[in-house]
Structures are given as structure tokens and as C-alpha cells.
């Protein structure tokens, strides 16, 4: 009896703690938003250049979904930033130093200021999404790796105690399910296609595999939000293995001498040279004509 009682209490205190802590902070939200914005921008580079019209439309539709998701995350981040700058009078002032990293501008933050006015080192997207489009196979593989990650990520986040995160994730999960199906089918088609397409997929794996490890390395802002992306790794690997098997593509060695060295840094703002070029194009208009609107 006593044991049951004490374990109950323990459980209760655990509950109350977990319902308090797992709210996402500004940096965590920016990471989620930057991931989707940068991949959307990369995919949008295909607009008018897709191998056939239908797939040109497909990749830009995925781009649109991702922009929508990033808008939701940026809007949430902007709300938090603005609340930290000007806490409502009725509310107690924030106990911590306002989390304003990456928001070097006067006035209020908005989805636009967060997307258009932050510098390279302030972007927290993982390295995978900023890599070059390469050929269609490389673009497909990047999308597949990321969609598989996003699928398991949003599946977890839709149950987050952070209601706004849960709502964004539940909505986005429907879209990502579709992206994952589409990109899986393409990986299979190209991997198990012609000798040429198979070779190109091998080259794409060689190019991109080294950026997949970072997806599962927790950043401080994820742990603060009560979320460890490392927990997604097994499910992700299972999905990738299943699709690669069907595509007759090999999974690179995971350990031992042949293991690929995994690149990291994007989540903390240390990027490959690619991101600077992306932002130059993405932010050009707002930098040149500040405040320009449609």
C-alpha cells in the first residue's frame, strides 16, 4: 500500500513538472521554422525547371506546404519575442532575460522580420536542408530523408504539452505524410530504375548521408522544451532501411572503420557555405527595399 502511495505521489509530481516545462522557447521555434523555410526555398528553385511538368508542380507544392509550416512557427516565435519585449502590465515581468537571440531589429518581431532580417549565424536549420539541389535524384533523396524525419518529429510533437506546437504539428503531419509517400516512391523508382538512375542515387547518398546524423543530435533548446530528437532515430532508420531495400540501395555503414563522419553545426548556427547563398537570394528584396510589401 505504502509503495503504491509513494509511487503515486512521484507520478503526480512528475506530471506537474512535465505539464510545466515542455513549452517551446524562441530558439527552438526558430529551428523548426528555419528547417522548413530553407528546404522550401531550395525546392522552390526547381520552379520552372522540374524534369516534367507534373513533378515541377509536385516539388513546388511541397515547397508551399513547408512555407506554410514555417509561417506558423515564425508567428509563434514572434508572439513570444514580443511578449518578452513588452510584457502585458497585468503579467509579472519575465523572470529570465528575454530570449531575443536572432532578432536584431527595432520594434516588434514578425514572421517577416524573422525570415528576412536574420543573418546566417542566426539561422538554426540543420545542414541537410541547405544542401544544393544537385540533380533530381539528390533533391528527392534530401526530401525523403527530411520528410521521414519530419514525419516522426510531428508525430511526437502533436502530443506536446505546448498546445500551439501540438496544433501546428497535427496539421503539418497530414501534409508530411503525403510528402513522405511521394518521395519514398521516387527513391524506389530511381534506385530500382535504370543503371544510370541507380548510379545517381548512390552518388546522392554519398553526398547527403553525412548530414543525416545531425537530425538526431539534441540541441539545448530542444532539451529545454522536453524533446530529444535522438528518440526518433530508430524509427527513422527503420523507414529509410525499408525504402532503401525496395530501391535496391545500400545503407552506408553505421559504425566501425567504414562509418561516415557525420557533420553537425547547423542547429547551433554553424552552417556550410550553402546557406549564405540561399539567404542572399531569399532576403535580397527586404534588404534592398526594407518594408516592401506586395
Amino acid at each position, binding site marked *: 500500500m505504502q509503495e503504491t502511495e509513494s509511487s503515486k505521489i512521484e507520478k503526480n509530481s512528475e506530471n506537474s513538472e512535465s505539464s510545466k516545462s515542455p513549452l517551446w522557447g524562441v530558439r527552438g521555434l526558430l529551428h523548426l521554422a528555419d528547417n522548413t523555410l530553407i528546404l522550401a526555398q531550395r525546392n522552390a528553385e526547381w520552379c520552372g525547371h522540374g524534369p516534367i511538368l*507534373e*513533378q515541377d*508542380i*509536385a516539388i513546388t*507544392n*511541397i515547397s*508551399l*506546404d*513547408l*512555407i*506554410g*509550416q514555417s*509561417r*506558423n512557427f515564425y508567428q509563434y516565435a514572434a508572439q513570444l519575442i514580443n511578449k518578452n519585449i513588452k510584457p502585458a502590465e497585468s503579467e509579472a515581468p519575465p523572470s529570465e532575460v528575454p530570449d531575443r537571440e536572432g532578432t536584431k531589429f527595432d520594434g516588434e518581431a*514578425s*514572421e*517577416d522580420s524573422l*525570415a*528576412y532580417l536574420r543573418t546566417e549565424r542566426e539561422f538554426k536549420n540543420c545542414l541537410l536542408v541547405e544542401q544544393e539541389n544537385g540533380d533530381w535524384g539528390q533533391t528527392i533523396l534530401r526530401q525523403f530523408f527530411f520528410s521521414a524525419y519530419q514525419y516522426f518529429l510531428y508525430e511526437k510533437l502533436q502530443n506536446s504539452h505546448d*498546445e*500551439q506546437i*501540438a*496544433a*501546428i504539428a*497535427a*496539421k*503539418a503531419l*497530414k*501534409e508530411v505524410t*503525403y510528402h513522405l*509517400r*511521394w518521395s519514398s516512391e521516387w527513391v524506389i523508382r530511381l534506385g530500382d530504375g535504370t543503371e544510370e538512375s541507380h548510379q545517381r542515387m548512390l552518388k546522392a547518398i554519398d553526398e547527403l548521408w553525412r548530414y543525416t546524423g545531425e537530425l538526431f543530435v539534441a540541441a539545448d533548446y530542444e532539451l529545454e522544451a522536453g524533446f530529444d530528437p535522438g528518440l526518433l532515430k530508430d524509427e527513422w532508420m527503420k523507414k529509410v532501411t525499408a525504402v532503401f531495400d525496395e530501391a535496391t540501395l545500400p545503407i552506408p555503414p553505421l559504425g566501425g572503420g567504414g562509418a561516415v563522419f557525420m557533420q553537425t553545426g547547423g542547429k547551433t548556427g554553424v552552417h556550410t557555405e550553402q546557406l549564405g547563398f540561399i539567404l542572399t537570394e531569399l532576403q535580397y528584396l527586404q534588404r534592398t527595399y526594407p518594408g516592401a*510589401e*506586395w
Partner: protein
Amino acid sequence: MSNLDNLNNKNISEAIESSKALPLEVPAREGTKFDGEANIWKILEQVTDPEIPVLTITDLGIVRAVKIIETLQNPPLGGGGAGIEVIITPTYSGCPAMDMIAMNIKLALLENGYSNIKITSVLAPAWTTDWMSEAGKRKLKKYGIAPPRLRSDGTSDLQCPQCNSTNTKLISEFGSTACKALYQCNDCKEPFDYFKCH
């Protein structure tokens, strides 16, 4: 990512200035709140989707709730007073029609004498094609778009909107808008849009 909210408010201020005589309070509708809401729903039933103009926003299930509020918090035109809050939900996270739909709702209500209209977009629960009305599905089909249909086992049961054949093939998972996929009928050979189950 333009700041359409300001744009909307500007347009509405202009619309109000040009027709001076708009009432500031919610017009009395048979004396009860419920009837007032019913009238607003009737107006919303006239607002069409900008990308699929054969469907109204109520056919699509985009309008989740209508509230008549005695004192609207942060009314778009400032001041206190009664107002209307229309709660909508996007079909897809990146649906580019949402800003326009919000503006069209405001304009339709203004034209009908309402003012102080607030449009609130909510994400949860996530929109689903299950919310599309049967009338909406019939209109879609007549327009040449196969409506979303699910078999009991969860697979799609789509029909060619031209000849009703179920012998169809997928051309592309993605179509001309986020909510559609591209199919072709194997019998009459006609390519057609399919409104995806979501």
C-alpha cells in the same frame, strides 16, 4: 508573407468611409442571438473559395464558428462595441487563399451592414475533407473535379467526373493546388483533378 492584415483593415476603413451609413452595432435579427448567427451563416454561404469558385467556404468546412460578441476584444476598427468573430481554419498550412478568404468574409459582412468583424484563424482541430458538405461534393463533381471519397477500408474510391468510371490512374500526387491530385480516366481518357482526402 505580406502583411495582409493591415491591408485588410485599410480596405475595410475605405469601404466604410465610402458608404458612411453603416450601422455600428450588430443589426437586430428577430431579437435573438441565435437568429443573428443564422443570418451571418447565410451570408458566409455566399462567399466562394478563390481557387475553386464553385465551392463556398461553408461547403469546404473552412468556417468553424460564428460568434456575436457584446464587446469584441481588440476590434479591428478600434473602440469597444459589439462585433462579430468568424473563426476559420486553413485547409493546408500554406494555403495561399486564406488571406483572401478572410478579406472576402469581411467584405461580404460589411456589404450586409455588419461592422467590427474579426477573423480568427485556428489550426486545431486540423481541417479534414470529412467536413466538406455533400452539396459541395456534388458541385465539385459537376465542375469536373472528382470529390474526396473514402472506402470503409480507408482507400480512395474515386470516380471519373465525366463518365463515372472507377477505372482511373494516378498521373501525379500533386495537382494545380495543394488540395488536388491529377488523375486520368482509363475509359474515357479524360484527365481530371481529384480533391484529395485529407
